[in-house]
């Protein structure tokens, strides 16, 4: 019997007290193993690291012990530089190990990533599940990868870009990492996905631009996943990564039906992303049935010019009313502001901050604009007068309305206000 291909899927997750694990890697593994023929030919292990707690040296310690045949890295703006450096170290120490990368940080700028990182052998663009499985099918049968859709790869000195792969539809083709036992649910750190795509096209966001069509996982699959969490004694809180949980009233009703039993048993949903402007009394009832205890929302800015520049619209009154309704009904509100959006000067940012705090959310979260590959702002950055760090995480450096000096002041002010407000 020929030797199995040993594969390690790994990433550095954002630091949190509850230690996140990667849902994306779970999807990759569960999709790959659904093919019985491929399952016989691969061993796949997932290792999650923390971007703040773990250094490359520690990760290398594991990798050099495991000596995988292929390492698949899930790359995001917060871990890209670290992973690129790690990939180079791995190639130096284990030149026979193949390195594959995927994720929103690398897909949109695949050629640039491959050119700048000679240690990377394969890059999956867009949704990685089917592309990764197709790549492994070729590798395990000794065939060439030239027909693997969605793949960018190195062929000698040449970087080859295969044709695009269609999006996976229906989404249920991807087995649930939880129902297959690929991922073990953990309290606070468990995230479900009920759909992919976004109806909005916020200029700073990857989701809406690249996945404009909404594709949903089936109700039956969602129900089964929730029932699994319901039966888990250790999971009391979980969440959804859906960009807008209340996409429509009908959808919210469906989610309430699915989550009702778990919620009745005390399972709660935390930091659900919500469109606050469409919250009404009926929504509140449904959110309570779902067990939602906290939500996260914008506005990112209240400056009409900045909103227009990033293709967002906000009705300040509806926004304010929505927050008031949520708070009145015991649902905690986390409100987000972005520093450095186009058309937002320092005083504009201060005014948006004042307005956000006037709504009295439970927590205010500030972040500096990251001009991410694959977003409208990234494409239009020159036209919009945005100067940003080309290295991940692509922090904004200045705009036509905010000098670097003012940006840094805004960050200092934001940190001070964050401490005062959120105390």
């Amino acid at each position, binding site marked *: 019997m020929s030797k199995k291909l040993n594969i390690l899927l790994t990433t550095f997750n954002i630091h949190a007290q509850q230690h996140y694990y990667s849902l994306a890697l779970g999807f990759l593994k569960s999709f790959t193993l659904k093919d019985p023929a491929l399952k016989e030919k691969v061993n796949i292990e997932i290792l999650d690291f923390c971007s703040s707690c773990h250094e490359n040296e520690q990760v290398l310690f594991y990798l050099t012990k495991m000596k995988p045949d292929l390492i698949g890295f899930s790359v995001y703006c917060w871990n890209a530089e670290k992973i690129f450096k790690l990939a180079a170290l791995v190639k130096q120490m284990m030149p026979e190990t193949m390195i594959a990368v995927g994720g929103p940080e690398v897909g949109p700028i695949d050629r640039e990533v491959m050119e700048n990182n000679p240690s990377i052998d394969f890059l999956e663009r867009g949704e990685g599940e089917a592309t990764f499985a197709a790549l492994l099918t070729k590798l395990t049968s000794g065939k060439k990868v030239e027909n693997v859709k969605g793949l960018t790869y190195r062929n000698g000195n040449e970087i080859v870009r295969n044709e695009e792969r269609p999006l996976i539809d229906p989404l249920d083709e991807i087995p649930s990492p939880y129902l297959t036992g690929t991922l073990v649910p953990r309290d606070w750190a468990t995230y479900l996905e009920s759909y992919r795509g976004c109806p909005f096209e916020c200029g700073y966001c990857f989701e809406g631009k690249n996945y404009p069509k909404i594709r949903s996982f089936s109700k039956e699959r969602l129900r089964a996943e929730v029932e699994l969490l319901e039966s888990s004694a250790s999971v009391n809180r979980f969440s959804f990564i859906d960009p807008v949980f209340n996409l429509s009233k009908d959808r919210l009703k469906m989610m309430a039906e699915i989550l009702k039993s778990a919620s009745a048993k005390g399972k709660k949903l935390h930091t659900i992303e919500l469109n606050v402007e469409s919250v009404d009394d009926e929504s509140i009832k449904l959110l309570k049935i779902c067990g939602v205890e906290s939500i996260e929302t914008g506005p990112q800015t209240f400056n009409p010019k900045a909103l227009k520049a990033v293709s967002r619209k906000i009705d300040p009154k509806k926004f304010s009313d929505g927050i008031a309704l949520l708070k009145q009904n015991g649902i905690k509100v986390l409100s987000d502001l972005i520093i450095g959006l186009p058309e937002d000067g320092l*005083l*504009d940012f201060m*005014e948006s901050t004042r307005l956000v705090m006037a709504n009295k959310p439970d927590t205010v979260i500030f972040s500096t604009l990251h001009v991410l590959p694959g977003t409208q702002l990234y494409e239009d950055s020159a036209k919009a007068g945005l100067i940003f760090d080309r290295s991940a995480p692509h922090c904004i450096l200045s705009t036509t309305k905010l000098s670097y000096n003012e940006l840094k002041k805004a960050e*200092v002010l934001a940190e*001070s206000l964050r401490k*005062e407000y959120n*105390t």
Partner: protein
Amino acid sequence: MIQYAKIFTGPYCNNDCTCCPHTDSDRSMRPIEEILEQIDEAKTKGLNSAYLYGGEPELRYDLKQITDYLQKQGFTRIKLSSNGRAFSQWKRVEESLNKGIFGYEIKLVGSKVGTHDRITQVEGSFSQTVQGIVNLRNSGDPATGRKPFVGLKVLLSEDNIDDAQEIVSLGVSLRVDRIILSLASSGLKITDVLPILRGSIEIAVLNKLWISTDGVPLCMLNEYESHWGELFGLGLREGEKGNKCEKCSVFDVCNGVLSGYLDKFGDAELLPLKKGQQLGIIKKIAQAQNV
């Protein structure tokens, strides 16, 4: 930015600062009934943050009664202005946190014993205040991980203006969360001290510490408008304005200069600011702080 109900607890204090407007005979506590009434009124305005100032509110024996009432009335954020001396005792820090006070604004008037104690006229006050800041910085609720916000209010007068930048540097080393530079004496000519104020702002921001000014009109803060105290609801003392000030776009929201300043220095420094987009935003933000 955060709208606070500003609650005066009385001029009673255990320091005797040379720059303090309150005299010896004026060292009284405000009747609690008045304070509770003010809290009720603040609640009707929809406020949920309270700023207690004096004097020295920490000296009130009934401070817990006030903070209990604030919390009962739904105030989730309580900030205390203090000289910090009480908090040199760890027990007092714990008691204060247990009262629900998680915001502090500690008054510091010198970077060294000599300067600070000379102004407060209390020997040992500097070491107590600094220890108080250190204790507050190291405190928190172990159950929730909640840590107090610790700001510094630097009261500037002729006695310590040359020490301003060192005081700010001390604040940086003590890891405070914000600094207010407050002109506490009408004897300081603002245009003369502006370079010191600007330098202090640069030191703070370079060290990632936000700093605001109090008692400096906007017309003198060229390029430092974002640090204007009125944007943050600062300014508790009654000010005065010049004859030309009525023409200024921010006349309604500016606190002006300290009482007595115009008699000493006239109003030549005060120049009315004309309408402009930025002034429109400044006025909106400052107006909202007047609750």
